[in-house]
């Protein structure tokens, strides 16, 4: 079994300040973890993925995330928010073994960026 908890439904930051979007997971198997971004009325775009290589993962648009097995966390960060970062963000877990191919999505975190 697997689950994902995005700890904040909304996060509000000022442009130029750091971003932290929190995600905790549980999985019976070694997980693959992903962060996706969705702008209004658009499909989901992959930001970054953890696949059991480096625990610090760098993605597009300056985002990165750190896999912490001891804390079962995969928080998404960015040093300096830009107005274009305002969107919905989804944390996703998929078992990398066990034969399942069904991902589990978090409920999403809405990132609001103030000028």
């Amino acid at each position, binding site marked *: 079994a697997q689950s994902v908890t995005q700890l904040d439904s909304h996060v509000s930051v000022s442009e130029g300040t750091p971003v932290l979007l929190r995600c905790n997971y549980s999985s019976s198997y070694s997980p693959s973890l992903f962060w996706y971004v969705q702008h209004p*009325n658009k499909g989901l775009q992959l930001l970054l993925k953890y696949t059991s290589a480096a625990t610090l993962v760098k993605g597009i648009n300056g985002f990165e995330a750190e896999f912490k097995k001891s804390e079962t966390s995969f928080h998404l960060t960015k040093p300096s928010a830009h107005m274009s970062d305002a969107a919905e963000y989804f944390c996703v877990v998929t078992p*990398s073994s066990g034969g399942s191919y069904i991902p589990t*999505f978090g409920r999403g975190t809405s990132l609001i960026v103030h000028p």
Partner: protein
Amino acid sequence: SQTIHQWPATLVQPVGSPLSLECTVEGTSNPNLYWYRQAAGRGLQLLFYSVGIGQISSEVPQNLSASRPQDRQFILSSKKLLLSDSGFYLCAWSQPRSSYNEQFFGPGTRLTVL
């Protein structure tokens, strides 16, 4: 490279009318295919997934159905739409037998049932 298409982009339908949404993938073979629905202000709900032609698994009982008539074509249908069917429908694909199961999403279809 692989691409995924969905159409139509937007659709307004009356209650009780039929529905057909189409998704096609190019540049890969035997993909896993998925249909999701996203209601206003909510997360993604997995509706159907398919690992091959004619193989459809339903995650949520409802008045929707899915079919996969060709390897890279996935269709979402309904005989009679309900108001609650309104939402943003997303199709996605992933590589078969992938260790990571990274999904790639289409642009979505906005369905409004009146």
